[in-house]
């Protein structure tokens, strides 16, 4: 019954539960909801770093959430707040690194995402989908860090421009402008390969 209560309530309610008195079950529910999403996000963001470091960063994100969730005044924005923390930590990690000198193909980094199949039975469609993702990812690799970050939030996490603005603290107009620039590059590549 108790577990059911947490399962049915939304993020904001869970955050309120947690804030009312360090409700561990509420945190667990939130963690279970977002751990895959954040892990994927971090892996995509830091696709050149080894898996264990990404895992540590995710740990760090959730530790921070556990310790500082009581400071969040509007529980409705929990998701973006979480993304913001993840993004800040990732950027901090990138800044800490001196130079990245790995001469691997981006498709290799993409491998963990490609090996998973969609829930479809169509193998050919599955293959095409993976090709599209690889192409997009290769194009993303050429963009600079901040632009890549925005496009990733748009493509893979499906946030709107206003939400991205909340995460990155860049005004929505600038985000639109930057996105259009990225779209031009990506669409050119996809058109060349004949996917659109």
């Amino acid at each position: 019954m108790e577990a059911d209560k947490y399962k049915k309530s939304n993020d904001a309610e869970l955050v309120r539960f947690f804030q009312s008195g360090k409700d561990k079950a509420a945190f667990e529910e939130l963690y279970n909801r977002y751990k895959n999403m954040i892990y994927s996000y971090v892996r995509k963001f830091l696709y050149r770093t080894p898996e264990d470091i990404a895992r540590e960063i995710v740990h760090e994100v959730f530790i921070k959430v556990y310790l500082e969730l009581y400071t969040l005044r509007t529980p409705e924005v929990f998701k973006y707040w979480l993304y913001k923390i993840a993004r800040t930590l990732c950027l901090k990690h990138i800044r800490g690194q001196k130079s990245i000198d790995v001469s691997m193909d981006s498709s290799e980094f993409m491998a963990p995402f490609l090996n998973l199949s969609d829930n479809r039975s169509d193998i050919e469609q599955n293959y095409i989908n993976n090709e599209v993702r690889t192409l997009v990812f290769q194009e993303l690799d050429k963009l600079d860090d901040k632009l890549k970050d925005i496009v990733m939030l748009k493509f893979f996490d499906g946030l709107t421009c206003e939400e991205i603005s909340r995460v990155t603290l860049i005004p929505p107009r600038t985000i639109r402008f930057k996105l259009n620039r990225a779209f031009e590059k990506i669409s050119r590549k996809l058109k060349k390969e004949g996917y659109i």
Partner: protein
Amino acid sequence: MKKPCHKYSRAELFSYAYGALEPGKKREMALHIRTCPECKSNLKKVLNVKFVLKNTPQLSFDDSADLIIGKAAEREHEPTAYDRFRERWSRLREDLGYFLRLHFRPEYALITALLLLAGTGFFFLNHEPGRIYLTKISGQVHVDRVPFFPLHRYEYPLSKGLQVKTGNGECVLQIKKDRLIVLKPDTEIHVRPGKGSVLELKEGSILCSVKKLKKADHFSVHADEVTMNIIGTKFFVDKRKGSFELGVKEGRISTQYKEKLLILTNCQVFRLMSGRISLRKLDRREEECFSLLHESRLIDDFSGTVKLVIQGTPPDCDVYEQYRRLSRTPLFVISPPDQRESLYVVRQDFETAQVDRNRSGVHEYSLKGIKAPVLGFKYRLPGAIEQRPVRIDDHLLLPGLNGVLTKYDIKENKIAWSYRTGNRISTTPVFEKNIIYFASHDQYFYAVDFITGELIWKQKVGTVVYSQPVLYDQRLYFGSSTGILYCLDAQNGKAVWTMRFNKGFYSPAAVSRDVLYIGNSDGTLYACSIREKKIVWKFRTRGRIISSKPLLKDQSIYFGSNDRFLYCLDQKNGRLKWKFDSGSEIFTSPVPLEDLVLVSSVRGTVQALQAQTGSPVWKYQTKGKILLDPVPASKGLICIGDKQDNIYLLNRFGLIHSKFKYDFITYTVFSNNLLIFDKNNYLYNFLFN
């Protein structure tokens, strides 16, 4: 077949699909897509990509929540930075309390408080409201507290007040930065101490000029019954026995007289004589006084020097400015009252200069030991002159523009003979043993007898010769504009030998010890052996060498190039000794001046360098471009003309000696004669000593 629709690109469709468009455009696009089947299908593909990307499978993360909670719980008990700070602060406070409890005495607190009070009091008392600067112009000036006024300039803090009394002289009182007061003879003035400056006029007359006033009541003048609050910028006050006058040149002044408020505006004079008030206009003499004040205004820049700036500078008065800048020592005006025409200036090293105050500019100009140049004669020439003339004894050789070489007798003031060539004369004539050699645009080279003016020989060169010929050992050397170096026999004009180069010669050659040095327009300086007819060495620069004659001096060769550098090479092997960046292209020849080498560049800078090391000694900036070679004159002077029609005479130290303004074509100097050829075909001869 239907045409493909090109209205929207794929990128725009992406933006549409992802909602990253401006609302207006989005609506427009939606309308289009509804009607256009092609765009619709494209959008479908894009949406498909969007779907695929959005449904990228997420990686599974299987660390349990308990792990995180455990880690967080550990972290929770770690002290934060704020905790650490608080702890340290509390420890410090405890230590301080302990210390105070041990050593505190009430006397200490009292002493500290007193010291603080004394410090603040000292600061406020010693705060200076400003300074007074007193500059003596002439005559006797008596200053209170300074029994003997030896200096020209005196500085005094405003906080202590000042009393000044002029005898038969004048002085300028400057309060703070913006108030300038000229005290006329027989005037007594008190400056009251304090922050707001108040002047008390006891007797006499003053001329005031206030640059800018933020508050109207900040500056006021008292004279017995009348108090003036100044808003105006230029005014005078005159107070004699029984009469009082107040005149305004610019601005507005409000005065209070027996509870009446009077407001005076531009060019009005208020007069009070035996209790009666009268108003009149400013007369011309008084206005002139102001214009003098306006022209020679002393402005202190608070760095210890007094600048004299003449405003509304007439065209030649910049000599004055030059003089001020070069002297680097304070200048003082000593204008004698009887001589209104000229302004005398004295420098601290007691050299005097006299400057004409008229609008026509500086004509009289005297320094210690040097007198201004005097016009010797003026003569109208039959035609215009192009090349620089040559003087031989009492004769001048004038290469005319219309192709006539004229010999002009200076003593008898008449033309001796003239020789006509086929076209314009292209080189400056060369003279030796009563024969004149020159080239013309008609592609011939001429040798003309000096006494009779008859042709001795002429030789067809084939092209125009711009490079001035050089005579050496009975042979003529010059380069043509097609790149051929000629060696002609001076007796009969036959070619002894020729050498071919890739590009043309425009600069004169120089010969020394059987070696000929000449700069080519491909930027290379060639040293050719005359006897063996071969190139000994060559030196390549980055620019073209045009009309810069190499200067041979003490085993070195100096020449300028279009790449802005002046080069100094060894005569023997052509090795670079030094080079100097002059800042712009060099078209002129370097000129020797004692142990210096002068180089003048296109932008009008004349720079003197040490001949041995190439280190710069001084620099002089003229107003226009310098394209003609400077000419050394007697007494170590150098004559330079620029394109703005100025001719400068500079001395060895880079100080200006004289300056002329004539619209000249060319000029030249012989011993102490300066010859100027102007555009109206006049020849002026100036003598200087």
